[in-house]
């Protein structure tokens, strides 16, 4: 079944550096935009991946983050609003020798392109989707987005938005995603570790990147970035590790822990200094069932972002669309022989008119 996502992608011949992945185009995001940090992290990570850069493709939709491909010295396509996953699906399904990345935003992926996102995830096409979530529409100058908190005051919602937001991680898990992770633009180390895991994952990987828009939604994720507040707000998930966070307890791990309620199966946050550590859940990103990953994704308060899990929530292997499509082609040749055009055109019922 699932080979490594990159097993058919040619390797780079020489040693690569970050510079190899910088295009000659001037980066035109607003000064201070979180996108710069993500771009630097991706450019910095690519040499580690060690792939021939001509076999790497970035496909994006529309929005601030979707300018990303112009700045990568790889193949790239800046497409139309919301459609990048569909376009990338056609590319990945026909070219298994490519490493295909989709760059999208909260409006692009979850509003106008919501349909393509969920179907890419359920198909498990070999795509790595980087979803830059800034919880606002930036390029159109500040309307609320499908991840904006309810009641948000924006240019299009002067009395507050009436929409409830999506939780992208919950959505992806519901859409049968085989790999779902969340990270933060400013934490380069964590971001890189998540990119590494995603790049190796066979099938579709969704990486939600909390990204600050310093013009229209500045400080949206400050609670996750400020060292003191982050202690309480961020739940760092590591596969095989107990889910602990908060100020360190005596054992050096967080003083808060996530436990499962016996009666209901719901997850609950407890103070381990009071309730002990025996019941604390150990994170299993490879669990077949997405139930616990989903429950973890629901711990976050959409208003305050308290108890936001970051890291790889789910990483399981299941059949990869493009691999199976390719297998069907091979099976068809095995069963019927390589296509013979003349035989096809003739079919079974012919008659001859003599000259």
């Amino acid at each position, binding site marked *: 079944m699932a080979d490594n996502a990159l097993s058919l992608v040619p390797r780079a011949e020489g040693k690569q550096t970050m510079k190899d992945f910088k295009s000659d185009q001037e980066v035109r995001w607003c000064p201070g935009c979180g996108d710069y940090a993500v771009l630097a992290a991706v450019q910095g990570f690519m040499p580690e991946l060690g792939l021939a850069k001509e076999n790497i493709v970035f496909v994006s939709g529309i929005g601030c983050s979707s300018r990303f491909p112009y700045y990568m010295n790889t193949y790239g396509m*800046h497409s139309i609003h919301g*459609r990048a996953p569909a376009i990338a699906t*056609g590319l990945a399904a026909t070219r298994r020798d490519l490493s295909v990345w989709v760059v999208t935003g909260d409006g692009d992926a979850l509003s106008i392109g919501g349909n393509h996102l969920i179907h890419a995830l359920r198909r498990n096409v070999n795509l790595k989707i980087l979803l830059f979530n800034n919880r606002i529409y930036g390029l159109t100058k500040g309307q609320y987005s499908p991840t904006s908190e309810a009641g948000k005051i924006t240019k299009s919602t002067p009395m507050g938005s009436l929409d409830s937001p999506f939780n992208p991680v919950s959505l992806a898990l519901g859409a049968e995603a085989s790999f779902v992770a969340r990270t933060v633009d400013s934490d380069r180390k964590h971001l890189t570790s998540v990119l590494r895991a995603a790049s190796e994952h066979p099938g579709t990987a969704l990486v939600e990147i909390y990204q600050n828009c310093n013009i229209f939604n500045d400080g949206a994720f400050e609670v996750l970035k400020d060292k003191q507040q982050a202690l309480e707000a961020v739940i760092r998930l590591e596969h095989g590790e107990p889910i602990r966070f908060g100020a360190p307890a005596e054992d050096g791990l967080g003083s808060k822990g996530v436990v499962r309620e016996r009666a209901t199966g719901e997850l609950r946050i407890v103070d381990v200094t009071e309730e002990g550590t025996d019941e604390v859940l150990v994170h299993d990103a490879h669990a077949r069932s997405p139930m616990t990953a989903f429950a973890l994704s629901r711990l976050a308060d959409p208003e305050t972002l308290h108890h936001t899990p970051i890291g790889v929530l789910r990483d399981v292997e299941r059949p990869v669309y493009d691999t199976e499509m390719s297998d069907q082609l091979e099976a068809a040749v095995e069963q019927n022989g390589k296509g013979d055009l*003349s035989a096809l*055109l003739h079919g079974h019922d012919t008659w001859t008119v003599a000259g």
Partner: protein
Amino acid sequence: MTSQVSSPAEGRPDDGKEIRRLDRVIIRFAGDSGDGMQLTGDRFTSDTASFGNDLSTLPNFPAEIRAPAGTLPGVSSFQLHFADHDILTPGDAPNVLVAMNPAALKANIADVPRGAEVIVNTDEFTKRAMAKVGYDESPLEDGSLDGYSVHPVPLTTLTVEALKDFDVSRKDAGRSKNMFALGLLSWMYHRPTEATEQFLRTKFAAKPEVAEANIAAYRAGWNFGETTEDFAVSYEVAPASATFPPGTYRNISGNLALSYGLIAASQRADLPLFLGSYPITPASDVLHELSKHKNFGVRTFQAEDEIAGIGAALGAAFGGSLGVTTTSGPGVALKSETIGLAVSLELPLVVVDIQRGGPSTGLPTKTEQADLLQAMFGRNGEAPVPIVAPATPTDCFDAALEAARIALTYRTPVFLLSDGYLANGSEPWRIPELDELPDLRVQFAHGPNHVQEDGSEVFQPYKRDPHTLARPWAVPGTPGLEHRIGGIEKQDGTGNISYDPANHDFMVRTRQAKVDGVEVPEITVDDPDRSANVLVLGWGSTYGPITAAVRRVRREGGRIAQAHLRHLNPFPRNLGEVLARYDKVVVPEMNLGQLATLVRAKYLIDAESYTQVRGLPFKAEQLAAALKEAVDRG
């Protein structure tokens, strides 16, 4: 129906009945959606094709899969026109109507002229069934069918009787009545029977008893014709030997021909075929067909929606596949933005629109050619797209190759505008030899194509071929040609984002010039003695009816010239000159005058529009009357 000569049939036992020779016949099978009329028509067509007649078919069925039984909306029909000479349409007026129930009679009798034969399944003419479609009295008895040659046949009873020794229920036995009817008609018209029997054995290979029951019903129908006195005459229609150039032939529908054309294009281009599609009537059959041919390296992707279908096809094209998307009018509307992106990216892409009645959901199973202006202009900005429209079901094969040729040569999306009539209609096709097919091989970019002022060599994704104005096709995986493309306006040459006014003006005009410069064959005019004052100009599937109508006009002494457009964008270079030669240009279309609008705008001629939007092809007789009137007016 001329030249009626009595002669014994060859290779068939003399049943002592009169045999008349006809030059052509039009048969319409009509019944409930569940009566198997399409299958019956298909079989009669296959047997007729292999017999060597020329033929043309018109399947006509409701959008509902199983509309309530016995109702007018549930009537499904299949019309077949076959002849001993070349014919162009499925025919105007049936010589024979087979009506499996009162609804089928009611829905179809108005199309059938007095004097024609009407075979009715009397078993279904119960009071209740007749009341359901508004017959207060039985049309078989109230005189309303006077003047028709009515054959009341208890088809269901006879079929059940014929199958009494089979281990099938009465209900299941009755379902074979379509095969009984097929057998009867096959006797009447001297059709060969082996192929249908073989077909039934193959179709029901898993249920041999069902196969044998159907064959028994089929033979019973034949024997019924031979023995019953109600059918005193049978008919011969000789093979159309003189019509067909030498070669190997088969019968083929437009959608099948189009599917084969796409596979042939992929083979001749040596590029893998990728189809991104979303199911939609009447285009789904192309998706079904292509999905059967994975051993040709064909990848079919049933997308989550129309937009994803074309998006994936465009992504595949970026990767070096022959990208295709198939749809009908509503799907084109959804794909418009992506077609615009393809115009901007300048990547090859074939967009197949099997047109159906519109607007909106319209008439899903009926034909129309009202998407011409949508194909031409239905995008934001200046987004020219070449358009190819097949003229006949078999032409769908060549038109698919032609659309692929233009897409690959000029790196552009191309519309292939078929329609429901071509899609489902069929006719004999001379199977081409492979070396008759065009060579569509392309050269991917493989290295730098530009020397900069400092002498360094670079790759410019938007540096064009000076002849075709096509940009290089540099596929991912090619070292050194890494580049970024997108929907934002690009700088000429480099392809970098550019908002420069002069550059945008240049790029818009260049994209237009590229499409305007697509090389297409000149239009030919059929004007036998070069004396006509009136030219009839058609496009797409109206070719058959227009040509048949032109023949009629000429037979009656009218002078009329005919020209047919297969390329709608760009028009053939000589079109303006051709149009200027005639005092009057008449443009028949199954829309409200879309081609007429285009030629009036481009050539400043007073083109006369003749239109109908009934979901059905033109009838030759009616069109001939309109053309004759135009000729007579002078």
